[in-house]
């Protein structure tokens, strides 16, 4: 029964993907992609990867979908110069060959499947965390997570770098239309507080159950964007000192605690015994705040008006 469901999901995913590739107009393709993100989330839950499913829903589908939609609306569709038939056959064959190679690997897995699950389990207690993925992200491979935060920050600066010189330090997005009534502000007024609560909750449980800073931060970011769209808050000036501290706080706390680990716990990004969980939580909270700000601002785009 489950297999039939899985087969259905797989076929549907492939179908949507193919449709997205083939779609005649750009916006339709974007819509196809958002659907693809949703169905992929389902696939992740079927694979038992709830943390990933949350991340996929929040970021892979959600945030990515938002910016793609925006672009789909803003960008005039390029006059589609359709590739020649020969090119399509050639590229199709090459892509199919890669897919076939991967399929072969999928069909001929090593016995037994290699896994680090045991090692993760073995040391998890010493991190004080219940969620093994949190353990990987915050302890074993904390350096990845730290760098990833830097990557997100860099992406934000990269997005800002694409604004015009005249708007440098200004606010992203068009100016809010003042005094606009309607459903959106009302909707936002209800949803935003709820969203914030959910976001914080997801971060909080992330230590022991599926959830975590990236997912939580995305939800918080989504709330900020929603509030912005509804005109409840104005996008901050990117030169703002407080904003910059907000963005830096997470990385600074992370690197600070990491460096403190050298004298206190014998290694960079090691936590002193007994203080693992509280320290990790401190980092997570600081990161969540900063990541939420980063993600929201990335989605908001480069400054488009003066301060």
């Amino acid at each position, binding site marked *: 029964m489950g297999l039939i469901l899985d087969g259905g999901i797989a076929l549907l995913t492939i179908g949507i993907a193919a449709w997205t590739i083939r779609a005649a107009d750009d916006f339709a393709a974007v819509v196809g992609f958002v659907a693809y993100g949703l169905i992929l989330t389902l696939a992740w839950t079927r694979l038992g990867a709830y943390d990933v499913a949350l991340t996929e829903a929040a970021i892979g589908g959600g945030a990515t979908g938002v910016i793609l939609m925006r672009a789909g609306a803003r960008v005039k569709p390029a006059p589609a110069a359709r590739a020649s038939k020969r090119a399509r056959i050639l590229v199709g064959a090459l892509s199919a060959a890669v897919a076939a190679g991967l399929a072969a690997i999928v069909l001929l897995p090593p016995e037994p499947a290699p896994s680090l699950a045991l090692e993760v389990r073995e040391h998890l207690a010493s991190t004080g965390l219940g969620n093994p993925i949190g353990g990987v992200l915050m302890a074993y491979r904390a350096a*990845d997570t730290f*760098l990833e935060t830097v990557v997100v920050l*860099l992406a934000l600066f990269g997005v800002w770098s*694409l604004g015009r010189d005249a708007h440098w330090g200004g606010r992203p997005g068009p100016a809010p239309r003042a005094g606009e009534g309607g459903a959106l502000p009302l909707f936002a007024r209800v949803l935003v507080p709820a969203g914030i609560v959910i976001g914080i909750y997801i971060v909080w449980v992330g230590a022991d159950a599926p959830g975590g800073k990236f997912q939580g931060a995305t939800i918080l970011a989504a709330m900020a964007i929603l509030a912005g769209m509804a005109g409840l808050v104005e996008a901050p000036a990117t030169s703002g000192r407080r904003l910059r501290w907000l963005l830096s706080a997470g990385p600074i706390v992370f690197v600070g605690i990491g460096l403190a680990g050298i004298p206190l716990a014998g*290694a*960079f990004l090691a936590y002193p015994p007994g203080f693992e969980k509280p320290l990790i939580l401190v980092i997570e909270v600081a990161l969540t705040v900063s990541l939420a700000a980063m993600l929201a601002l990335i989605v908001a785009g480069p400054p488009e008006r003066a301060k």
Partner: protein
Amino acid sequence: MSADVIATSPGGGLLVAAIVVPVIGILLLWLVRPRAVEGVALAALLANLGVALAVLRTVTSSDAPVVYLIGGWQPPLGLALRSDGIAAVFMAMAATVLVPVAIYARGAFGEPGERRPMVFWTMLLAITAALNLIFCGQDVFNLYVALELLTFAAVPLVSLDGSRETLKAALRYLVFALAGSVLYLLGVAIIYGAYGTLDLMGLAAIRGPDGALLLAIGLMTAGLAAKTALFPLHLWLPPAHAGAPPAASAVLSALVVKGSFFIALRLWFDLLPPERAVAGSTLLGIFGAAAVIIGSAMALRQARLKLLVAYSTVAQLGYLFLVFPLGLGSGAAPFESTAWTAGALQLMAHAFAKAAMFMAAGLVYEAIGHDRIAEFRGLGRIAPLTVLTMTLACISLMGLPPSGGFSAKWLMLTAALGEGAWWWVLVIAAGGLLAAGYVFRVLVPAFTPPEEPIGRVKPVVVAREAAALALAVIAILIGFLPLAPWPLLAIGRIAAGAP
């Protein structure tokens, strides 16, 4: 299956500093007053140079790699940093290139705190961190994150100018690089699925004819080749490197493309048994040869200096890929082979010479208001230091002695002739001739006295000319190192100790 237990070695903390220092620099840049931005960046780069030199010293004095276990966790669960001989040399090389670039870039982008200076300094520090991680990272996924950091830092530099052409070039670069990233990531997935480890040391311990590893390395190498702009995957490079501001082009051409190349080098030399690599490495060599010939021929055609220099990068990167067939085909331990040292020298000589060349091109532009080669007459009179810089850099690029370029060419020819692989010799010789041709095209008009006196458009800060000159001089000085395989470059290589 897992490698032997490893431990943090004395001086290992330096590797953490190599990554943390530039990152802290980035954070500070955005928090300090605009006027302090350049100072912070420069201080971070100087500190980074100190760290890199300290790592190099530690590796040479202990004759062993420097290792650090992040968080104290053993791979494959945890992540290790490990700087062997070649990583230490390259870290020092990158740090040395970055400081003159920073001196050159001071004040080049207008008021501090404005868009261009802020973006430039941020991205420069990000590149520093990413390169350091690439040079001493041990975990293929960790390296993936570093590669992406490198790409995200490089793209805004390409479009720093904000003109339509550069935006287009940046987009082309980004999306093509992303395609490369995905192929790399696919390889990572295959490796983890087959071996349950991503640690290079652990993977090297497996060393055997295993299909999954070969398939993974094939995909990853293709992805890395796209990011390195190996011909014919170089479609993005000329517009990107020619369009970026000179200080940025210098870093992009000298260092950024070398990051992905270095990972490819690691994968092939650390993980593949040489006998399995013959066909693949020959293929890479053929592409490299095509890069040398066609890149140089294209450089010969360019009317603008920056495009010429960018195509010269395409050609010079081609030489790097000759290391694969030459180093893996020698029959000797690859790291003690002549080709290994030749490749390292070529990479360094090109880094210094090309950075100097791009910076000189920028100074030329400032001096006469354009970079059309045909109108260079009298340049030697207006900007003698800049022309001297170009001359020295060109000497290395065309492989005349004494220069790093010559040493690299000599050793590469030695490797090729030693293996009786005369076809690579033909390529190297032909590349040298074509390089002489494009160098000739640039230098001859520059040396020719003008028909009528022409004036400088704008005075140039001597420190900036000196920064470019310093890099060119280093490219020459590398030529005084002994013409033999360096033992330093074999320290701590994974396969060196393997049977």
